[in-house]
């Protein structure tokens, strides 16, 4: 144990889910988003009782095709509110068929940057880190030909998954490292970056297996501190994509499969049997938890245990951008104590801020002096809230302070002093 420790080391509980590997789950139906925002009229060409094949394009959402993730019958459209994506217009599809729609597979030497981007778009590949379509990210980062910045740009497939429970990325690099790495190579070809690697924090033995599979130089090991730092060299510009997106790109290019399923870790302290499941997008979260025998009285969390969002409706569909679904037992309510100034929040802050001082100034309404501490640099990783021995929600306060700019309107009458 180092005397001057920096960063948070989370107590990992991934073993149980990793041992079982990736399992598939049969679903009875899915609910797929067709359009974002409040929309009353259903999309016209999607009539009820239309048979759809797995991978068939239903419509387009911001140039990215929406593909059916199961084969079956379209039942109708419904407007829902998703805790991560807001209001969505969704299609309900009953899974009762086995038709499959595949993309044509091209030989590897025909895969130019444009072709790869086109295929990534047609295959409807979403990056699981942020739920953004992969082709949009790649197109934005793409460099002109023979650009020298390519030497300093690193495309990193992020398989770190620095959460207590989440292990889907670990499972992916353990089960299909070669296909995922092929996808990463092709993504790097699309962006014209000359450097790329898979970032992992696998334990030593598993890391050795991975290095054996894809080559020693292509694996970058990060430390087990939260949040992870992906910088090998400070001059490098790091571009992150998810390992599942790489795998999906590899599958689309080699097998012609569209990105219809996510690999999700279902875990949490309310689950006796955590698992990594391969499920089609649009599956109800409740179905996942039932498959893992969740205890009653749990709270559903979409995303990891540090920055995940609570979800009250078990019928919420699983969408791209979610790799972990947690069922947590409600923790006892703790009244946050006063800041005793242990300074741990400052020691663990990856942005090098002074969270306690930001909170103090915003509590004392010293807004004009708040901006000197640049609270806007906060990434919202919540390491400070995790480490705070007084149990305060430091990260929430800092984020709030980061959004105040110049003039602040005080909420008179809202006295939150205990």
């Amino acid at each position, binding site marked *: 144990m180092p005397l001057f420790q920096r960063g948070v080391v989370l107590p990992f509980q991934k073993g149980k889910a990793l041992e079982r590997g990736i399992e598939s789950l049969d679903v009875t139906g899915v609910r797929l988003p067709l359009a974002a925002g409040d929309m009353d009229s259903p999309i016209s060409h999607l009539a009820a009782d239309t048979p759809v094949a797995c991978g068939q394009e239903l419509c387009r959402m911001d140039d990215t095709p929406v593909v059916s993730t199961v084969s079956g019958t379209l039942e109708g459209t419904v407007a829902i509110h998703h805790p991560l994506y807001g209001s969505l217009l969704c299609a309900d599809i009953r899974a009762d068929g086995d038709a499959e729609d595949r993309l044509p597979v091209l030989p590897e030497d025909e895969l130019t940057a444009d072709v790869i981007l086109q295929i990534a778009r047609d295959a409807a590949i979403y990056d699981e880190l942020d739920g953004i379509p992969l082709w949009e990210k790649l197109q934005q980062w793409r460099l002109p030909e023979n650009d020298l910045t390519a030497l300093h740009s690193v495309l990193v497939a992020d398989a770190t998954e620095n959460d207590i429970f989440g292990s889907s990325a670990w499972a992916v690099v353990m089960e299909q490292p070669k296909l995922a790495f092929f996808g990463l190579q092709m993504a790097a070809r699309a962006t014209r970056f000359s450097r790329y690697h898979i970032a992992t924090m696998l334990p030593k033995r598993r890391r050795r297996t991975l290095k054996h599979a894809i080559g020693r130089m292509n694996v970058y090991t990060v430390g087990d501190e939260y949040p992870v730092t992906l910088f090998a060299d400070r001059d490098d510009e790091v571009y992150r994509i998810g390992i599942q997106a790489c795998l999906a790109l590899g599958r689309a290019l080699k097998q012609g499969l569209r990105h219809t399923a996510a690999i999700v870790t279902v875990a949490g302290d309310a689950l006796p049997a955590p698992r990594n499941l391969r499920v089609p997008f649009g599956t109800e979260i409740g179905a996942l938890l039932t498959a893992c025998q969740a205890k009653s009285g749990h*709270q559903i969390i979409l995303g990891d245990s540090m920055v995940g969002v609570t979800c009250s409706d078990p019928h919420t569909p699983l969408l791209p951008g979610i790799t972990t679904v947690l069922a947590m037992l409600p923790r006892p309510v703790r009244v946050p*104590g006063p800041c005793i*100034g242990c*300074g*741990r929040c400052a020691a663990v802050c990856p942005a090098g801020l002074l969270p*306690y001082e930001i909170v103090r100034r915003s509590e004392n309404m010293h807004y004009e002096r708040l901006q000197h501490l640049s609270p806007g640099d906060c990434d919202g990783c919540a390491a400070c809230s*995790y480490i705070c021995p007084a149990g305060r929600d430091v*990260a*929430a306060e800092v984020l709030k302070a980061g959004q105040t700019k110049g003039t602040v309107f005080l909420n008179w009458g809202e006295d939150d002093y205990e």
Partner: protein
Amino acid sequence: MSKMLAPHIRTEARTGRMTMDVLLAAIPLGLFSFVNYGMRPVFILLLSVLAAVVTEAFCCMVGRRRLRTVLDGSAAITGLLIGLVMSPMVDYWVPMLGSAFAIIVAKAPFGGTGRNVFNPAAAGIAILTYCFPLRMFTYPAISNVSNLPIGMTVADQGVITELSLAAQLQAGATPSITRLQLLLGDFAGPIGSTAALILLAFLGYLLVRRTVSAWVVLPYLCTCALMAWLFPMTNLNPSYDIMAQLCAGYVLFTGVFLLNDPVTAPRFWLGRLFYGILAGILVMTLQRIGRVEAGSCFAILLVNAFSPIVDRWSWHFCHWLTRKRRIRREVKAHE
């Protein structure tokens, strides 16, 4: 169902556990003084803690704060620390008065736990040092006493007193205490600040538990040792001189307890480093030229006043150093 805010997991560390860690010091140091002086120092510690807790409860009631805050243990720490620097033959009301002063004047008016600017224990010790130097610094000779009388006062009861190590050093005398005695605390002095080995072991415990930060205490101890080496107070062997100066008065005690109070110390690592160095210089200076033999409490109060500014300036300095690199990154990202 209520909404749970992120993060959904929390660390095991709690404020209560941190204060309990410090309160654990009462066990080894209380036992040590019990063996040396009998039950009297134990009563002194208990009454001092009791006075602090009762005063804190009173202040909570007057200030209409929740009475539960008394249970966090910070008031008990204040009382314990004041009790630990008392002479074993001090009257019982002296530490009680100090504890009450510490809570009423140095803690409650600032807003209670976590908001006080000055270390309450240091303030209590300072006022007692100022008002009752004779009672504070009259120590029973350790070799002649095994049981002090338990009555209200021990004056005029034939207890042999002895000059403490700090007083001997300040007077320019050559102490006749061996190195082993220095380490074991086998010389006349306060209840809890003579046993160097126990204090160091306890410091190690606190460091391992991460209750205190090494950024404060290591620079402090190094500065103290450096000061002692540069300005010897005896003409004996330098290594013995350094040891004697570190064991005298409250130097080690300050490093383990008073300095590490998280509320009044800076929180940023560089600020802590400066704070430790500054405190070391001041403590050793006051030890040497002060009017009383142990002036650490005044030194602590002085550096407490500088603590917020040291904290912020050191952070701004670090921030300024890394700014260039950050700006370059941001420009790159925008391109």
